[in-house]
């Protein structure tokens, strides 16, 4: 099938490592996941959650990470975000190893996790308080972000009065406010209804295109991945590893009725062993 590269084979030879080296070398704002492994020392037998995971996301690229449940997507997300330490390997952001959470990454979680005691504007400005921007600059940045996600009129509302879709827009604005190199998202649209999800997907593509950010987007929804991504990293379970990297050669905006769209969905589903 056209446009589908074999990531599993690449991981075995030096293909991915070359790509990783390339990103590590030129200081670009890309991400390189370099032979990452994670073992949980539970009660009794250790569990291998991730094994030799390598792939790279180039600057400005939109990459989705899909896989069956239990394939370690969320563990990988946490490792990339610096919230969990990898047992082996490393993650490079713009060539620098990630050793902990960093404001160079804007992280968006599935359940929004807005700060309920802060207004929408205060939530968006939270990360800016720790930057060296002046008050006026912060204010301007918050306004800009609220404008970007279309929530300017809700700046003084508390999260309790927002719908799920609006909360996730605030979370995206909050993550983007500090101007990170990478937007890292863990099933961000998993908790909203189908109609809102499609709208948020369109909006995210707009934001991506207008900001030029690098995006790494974790999802279990194959159609969502095909709608959004330049490339899809397909994972397999037990242990969590990269099964294949699929290029999505479909022009945007992508229509679900397009035969090429359907082919990609079928291909990815086959790879993860899910029923169509």
């Amino acid at each position, binding site marked *: 099938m056209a446009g589908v590269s074999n990531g599993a084979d690449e991981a075995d030879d030096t293909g991915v490592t070359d790509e990783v080296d390339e990103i590590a070398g030129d200081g670009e704002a890309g991400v390189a996941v370099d032979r990452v492994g994670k073992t949980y020392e539970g009660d009794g037998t250790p569990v291998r959650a991730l094994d030799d995971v390598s792939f790279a996301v180039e600057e400005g690229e939109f990459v989705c990470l899909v896989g069956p449940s239990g394939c370690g997507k969320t563990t990988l997300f946490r490792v990339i*975000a*610096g*919230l969990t330490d990898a047992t082996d390997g490393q993650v490079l952001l713009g060539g620098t190893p990630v050793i*902990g*959470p*960093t*404001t160079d*990454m*804007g*992280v968006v*979680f599935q*359940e929004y*996790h807005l*700060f*309920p*005691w*802060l*207004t929408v504007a205060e939530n968006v400005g*939270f*990360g800016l308080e*720790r*930057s060296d921007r002046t008050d006026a600059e912060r204010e301007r940045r918050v306004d800009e972000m609220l404008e*970007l*996600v*279309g*929530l300017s*009129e*809700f700046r*003084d*509302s*508390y*999260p*309790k*009065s*927002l*719908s799920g*879709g*609006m909360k996730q*827009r605030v979370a995206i604005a*909050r*993550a983007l406010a*500090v101007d990170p190199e990478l937007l890292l998202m863990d099933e961000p649209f998993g908790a909203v209804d189908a109609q*809102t999800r499609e*709208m948020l997907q369109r*909006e995210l593509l*707009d*934001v991506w295109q207008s900001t030029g950010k690098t995006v790494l987007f974790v999802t279990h929804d194959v159609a969502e991945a095909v709608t959004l991504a330049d490339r899809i990293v397909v994972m397999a379970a037990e242990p969590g590893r990269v099964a294949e990297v699929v290029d999505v050669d479909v022009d945007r905006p992508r229509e679900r009725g397009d035969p090429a769209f359907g082919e990609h969905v079928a291909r990815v589903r086959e790879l993860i062993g899910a029923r169509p």
Partner: protein
Amino acid sequence: MATDTGGRFDGDGGTAIATGIGLDDPRRLVRGVAGIAGFVLLWHLVSLTQPAYVLPSPGAVVDAFAEELASGTMTAALWSSIRHWAPGTFVGTTLGVGAGVALSWSRLLDDVTAPLVRTLRPVPPLALIGFAIAWFGINDAGAAFIIAVGAFWINFYAAYGAVEGVSNDLLDVGRTLGVRGDLDMVRSIVVPAALPGITTGIRTGLGRCWMLVVASEIFGVPGVGREILRASNNLLVDKVIAYILVLSLMYLLVDVAFRAAQRRVLVWQA
């Protein structure tokens, strides 16, 4: 970017805040007044069958109240008790919240202090009267100490539990947004997130401290508690009830004021 607001969500989300004491709902107010009236009537009827040293009539209590008020004894006693209650509650609450947050947040502090905390916890404030006298003497400070001990434990456990309940996800979000170090994390995320639980503890403590006023004055410091103890020794039950009413009224006043403040602070709560 479009929004899907459609007018289902009001802008500030804080338009319908009840005062919580029923004044905003006439039906609840009427029912409450009816309840009190019924209780006083029942009390009056029962008191007709009993001698005054067992149960004085409501009228006798009102008389005793007026008499104590007119003589100045009541205001002097109340003022004295406030001098025990206010500093005792303030110090106990501050230390209790501080210790609760610190020990709940820090694994190290918690491990070091856990045996001590478990040993001291079951000691009732009243059992510490000997220390109150030895350390502070039979004076306002000694009484305030007893009250502070009571306030401390209530606030300690409320704050401890509230901090334990703060979601790890919020802490993770904080870390990704540049929160670094314990102090920054506690100040900008842990305490705000735990505030509903902490303020509930403070509120419980404020009420409990009015109860402790009686115990704190048992060793002879003047105040409302002292008047209650003295009157009951002399079987002046009408006077006992009059001073109990003083405590109830103070409790009510403080509680209503605190709840109003609490609602302002927690306006963001669902």
